[in-house]
């Protein structure tokens, strides 16, 4: 279950970034405000029940990623509260957490440690993970020689091994090829059957319409709608 109350996130956008001590001192002397506020999320309140698949739509820069980042605990909100009950697997960017100079297998151990899976458990499931990602032949190859699609598949395959209660996903379907996409979707559906919550941001309205129980529409940081897919998508097409 995810509950969000009056959630607001304000970023400070610096006019000119002051990175060295000297520049900061100059800034103090000149006494000017060197940043302006940018409201990425504006007073959001909503509740997501366990077992729902929620779509997150909105134009670029509407706050989708920021919302997912806050829910996964990466960035703190400026105001408001959020409660997330259950183990969360944030899946915001594919292949992040991977290191290019390490091999696929080594990366799995490292990534596993980050999301909370022990080395032993990964060794046991290694074949399944590599199989799902379709990269079994390349397990001892350095990741820098992988294509971005292969990296994405590996990351996704690893993520679903962590068996979370809540999955937060940011536009990953855009990367996979036509065979991988249905695979992801089938995982989402399996999750739904198992009573898990999935929140996923996407620009693919067709998928959203087909699989989501409810959809959140964000526009310039505000939540314009939180309703059945058809209604929300109609609204989205109007703006």
């Amino acid at each position, binding site marked *: 279950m995810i509950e969000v109350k009056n959630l607001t996130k304000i970023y400070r956008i610096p006019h000119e970034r002051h*990175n*060295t001590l000297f520049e900061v001192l100059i800034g103090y002397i000149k006494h000017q405000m060197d940043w302006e506020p940018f409201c990425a999320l504006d007073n959001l309140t909503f509740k997501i029940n366990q077992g729902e698949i929620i779509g997150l739509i909105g134009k670029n820069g509407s706050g989708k990623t920021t919302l997912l980042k806050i829910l996964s605990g990466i960035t703190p909100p400026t105001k408001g509260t959020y409660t997330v009950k259950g183990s969360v697997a944030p899946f915001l960017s594919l292949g992040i957490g991977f290191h290019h100079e390490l091999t696929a297998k080594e990366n799995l151990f490292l990534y596993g440690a980050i999301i909370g899976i022990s080395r032993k458990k990964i060794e046991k499931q290694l074949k399944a993970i590599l199989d799902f990602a379709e990269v079994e032949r390349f397990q001892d190859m350095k990741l820098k020689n992988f294509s971005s699609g292969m990296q994405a598949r590996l990351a996704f395959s690893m993520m679903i091994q962590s068996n979370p209660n809540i999955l937060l996903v940011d536009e990953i379907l855009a990367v996979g090829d036509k065979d991988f996409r249905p695979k992801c979707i089938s995982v989402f559906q399996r999750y739904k059957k198992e009573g898990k919550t999935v929140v996923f941001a996407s620009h693919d309205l067709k998928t959203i319409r087909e699989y989501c129980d409810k959809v959140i529409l964000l526009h310039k940081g505000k939540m314009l709608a939180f309703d059945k897919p058809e209604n929300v998508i109609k609204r989205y097409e109007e703006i």
Partner: protein
Amino acid sequence: MKKNTFSYYYNLIRELSWADFKLKYYGSILGLFWSFLKPFLMLLILYTVFNYFLKAGIKNYHIYLLLGIAIWNFFADGTKSSLQSILSKKNILQKINLSPTAVVISAIVHSFWTFIITLIIFFILFFFLGFTLDLNAILLLYFIFLSFFLVLGVSFLITPLYMKFKDFEHIWDVFLQMLFWATPIVYSQANVPQKFLRWYMLNPVTRIIADARDTVIYHSFPDLKQLFFTTIIVLVIFITGFLIFKKYSRQLIENL
């Protein structure tokens, strides 16, 4: 495995430092050997200069110097690698819920193992040269423990500064250079003028090195009051560092 449990952090720190280790020596011929070569080259240089040119006149100077260098290198390398750690993992930290605290600790773990192995080599040399230990030497374990928390505490204090100001790296370099000479590594604290001594002894690295030498080389038990005071200094540095880091690290990572 649940997050926020000991086994989660243990596993995370182990994997992070193991990956760092593999990346660090990738493509070098001597690899791991460099870590141990460094303190001994340093020993060779300092020994030549201070024993033959400047005539420091300290008995068993090689052993004396090596113990100092081992502890100092752990302090200098540990803090330096922790400075780099957050910045080099910037991408991950901004996109995955990865504990910044674990990243800093894992950066120190590598320096810590180097330190331990340098100490083992130190003791091989120590016994080879015919020195002996007595029961007091057990205290060395306590000094290793203290140095670990000192390095960790200082790292927690300085990494936020580095995240905020990129030129802190240079400041820290110069500061380490200064601290090297303000610590009795190549000379003895007995050479320090009496009027400075009070301030001089506030430096926790000095206190640890001096006491470690007393117990290992001179078989004497350090003054308990002083030892207690050292522990307090280290604890204060560690706790303030930890609290500051906990409070500001996420915010600073967001703005990197």
